[in-house]
């Protein structure tokens, strides 16, 4: 517990650098990774992550330092070479796309491991910790690292922000972007540069082996919660930062643990959780959706009651007590209270002491529901040949479902008929 407070209150200045560094790294990876996912390049991301290892090792061998900027540059160059190799192999040779990926991944990674082993056996004291590039060791970040990473990720995120619109168009519909005259080729190269850079940055936290997960998993999880690209960017960033911090915290308390596997495990929990809970397709979403519809029906029924009462004495503005309302149609008191309260907040009802009246919007809405109800009853009798005494129940349910388009359609088929099968007038809009 004390550890927990120390870590998250940033008591230790070293921890502050770690936390700052992690936030930058994971945010950049998530934002860039969202585009990587949408471009369907998840596997390329994986190959490029592995292709980065030899670059890091070579940068160290040449410069004999662990200066983060120099290692980053080495990483970026070798990641870029890996990407070029993949494109070259799949364009110019008979190798299929995934074969090219596999080839580049294993060759570059193999080379990286050889170099890494060579460095470790060279007896150079400065090399200690270089192996963190395999599985990540974010808890070991220091001030220089954090500052470098902050600058680097700030640049990446700013570029995405500036080019947000053209990126969106190019990823969604390349042909159309080309037809419009956008510099598609250059935008794609820029996106690839961003991907390689985000990977080069991210391996500091999770290592080359699991980097693809940091790139892709946050966006994949976010996709379950939203259908909007901008929200997807926000959510994936939040997921990635959270996972990054928790993973780093665990590795901070148990120093022998590498960060990468922890961050990725937590990301997997987020991704799995999103599948079950996600707002768009998840299981929780279905439950909430049901509840939403129940509330909607309740509110619409209350408006209907008041409209009916108004129709009866031709006074739609009158204030009615809860008893009067229940007399017209029984709605259990707690629900009636809750529904009315919400309707007052939404501006559909006006409240005076213990009584309620329809506001102009409320009247219109109530009228709409009655209109649909009566049109539907008429439709069932005239077009579906159901007897008039069988249609009410059906209309009670359907009135909450019918959309404006179907309503217009109904009005067309009914050709302006004036009364429903029970001889009540259909309240058309003027």
């Amino acid at each position, binding site marked *: 517990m004390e550890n927990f407070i120390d870590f998250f209150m940033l008591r230790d200045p070293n921890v502050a650098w770690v936390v700052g560094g992690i936030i930058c790294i994971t945010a950049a990876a998530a934002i860039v990774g969202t585009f990587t996912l949408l471009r369907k390049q998840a596997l390329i991301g994986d190959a490029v992550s592995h292709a980065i290892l030899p670059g890091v090792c070579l940068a160290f061998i040449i410069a004999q330092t662990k200066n983060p900027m120099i290692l980053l540059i080495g990483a970026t160059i070798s990641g870029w070479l890996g990407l070029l190799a993949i494109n070259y192999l799949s364009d110019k040779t008979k190798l299929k796309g995934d074969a090219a990926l596999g080839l580049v991944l294993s060759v570059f990674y193999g080379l990286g491991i050889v170099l890494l082993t060579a460095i470790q056996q060279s007896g150079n004291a400065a090399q200690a910790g270089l192996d963190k590039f395999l599985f990540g060791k974010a808890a070991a970040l220091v001030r220089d690292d954090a500052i470098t990473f902050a600058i680097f990720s700030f640049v990446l995120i700013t570029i995405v922000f500036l080019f947000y619109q053209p990126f969106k168009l190019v990823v969604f*519909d390349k042909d*159309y972007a080309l037809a419009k005259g*956008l510099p598609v080729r250059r935008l794609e190269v820029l996106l690839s540069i961003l991907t390689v850079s985000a990977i080069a940055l991210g391996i500091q936290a999770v290592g080359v082996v699991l980097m693809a997960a940091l790139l892709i998993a946050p966006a994949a999880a976010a996709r379950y919660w939203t259908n*909007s690209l901008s929200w997807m960017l926000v959510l994936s960033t939040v997921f990635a930062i959270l996972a990054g911090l928790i993973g780093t915290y665990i590795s901070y308390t148990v120093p022998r643990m590498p960060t990468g596997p922890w961050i990725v495990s937590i990301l997997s929990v987020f991704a799995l959780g999103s599948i079950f809970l996600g707002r768009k397709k998840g299981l929780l979403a279905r439950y909430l959706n049901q509840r939403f519809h129940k509330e909607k029906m309740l509110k619409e029924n209350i408006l209907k009651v008041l409209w009916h009462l108004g129709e009866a004495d031709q006074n739609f503005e009158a204030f009615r007590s809860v008893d009067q309302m229940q007399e017209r149609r029984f709605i259990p008191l707690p629900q009636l209270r809750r529904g009315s309260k919400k309707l007052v907040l939404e501006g559909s009802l006006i409240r005076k002491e213990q009584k309620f009246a329809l506001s102009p919007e409320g009247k219109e809405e109530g009228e709409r529901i009655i209109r649909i109800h009566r049109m539907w009853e008429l439709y069932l009798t005239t077009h579906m040949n159901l007897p008039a005494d069988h249609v009410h129940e059906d209309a009670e349910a359907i009135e909450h479902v019918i959309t404006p388009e179907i309503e217009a359609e109904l009005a067309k088929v009914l050709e302006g008929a004036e009364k429903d099968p029970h001889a009540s007038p259909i309240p058309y809009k003027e």
Partner: protein
Amino acid sequence: MIKQVPDPVLELHNLTVVYESKPALWNVDYTIPENHLIGVVGPNGSGKSTMLKALMGLVKPSSGYAHVYGKEIDEVRQRIAYVPQRNSVDWDFPVNVFDAVLMGRYKANNLFRRVSKADKEIAMEAIKKVQLEPFVKRQISQLSGGQQQRVFIARALAQEADMYLLDEPFAGVDAATENSIMSLLKEMNANGKTILVVHHDLQSVKDYFDWLLLMNTRLIASGPTEEVFTEDMLQKTYGGKLNILSRVVEIIEKQGHPIREK
């Protein structure tokens, strides 16, 4: 029968496009006058989409050139709106109808420019024209095929161009929607726009178009519909699967034979 005209708005000059080693367009040469509603008809794989892409400069010809309004396409892009075939994109992309249509307002010459309020109004206008208002906020994968097609058309409308090139806008669209899109196109044509439509239904060709292109890798005919839309020409376009042309194409493809000496 290929009718050439002076001052064309669309011109292909001896245009050949080759994919890998297979010709998709072969020596196509036509000129089309302004302000027509043009139909492009031909069997599957006859190069109709490729022809549109060549006009828009999306594929590189191996010989010949395409001119629009008498100029290279790059000089007049702003004036041309292109509607790709519907299956050319992944509809699961996270945008809603409004955002997708708004893309019609993006400007190629200023990448950093954000869409303005006026842009949004124009996009909304376009959505109304194709009767998609009830779906503005809906994610595009949750639309029917015909509605997705209308999103593409609205996006082109939002561009406020002078010329529209539409690749099979009626594929998977019901009769009512086809009618309403067609009357929209006719109205635009009456207002001076040139509109070119790749089309598959021979029944409606006469009602829809006043200029017709018949293609089968080569251009079979180009001219006013009443002159071109004949039994004989259709026979040449669709006739016997193994006509000489397709046999030659097959050989070229198999042998990787270059079709231009360079």
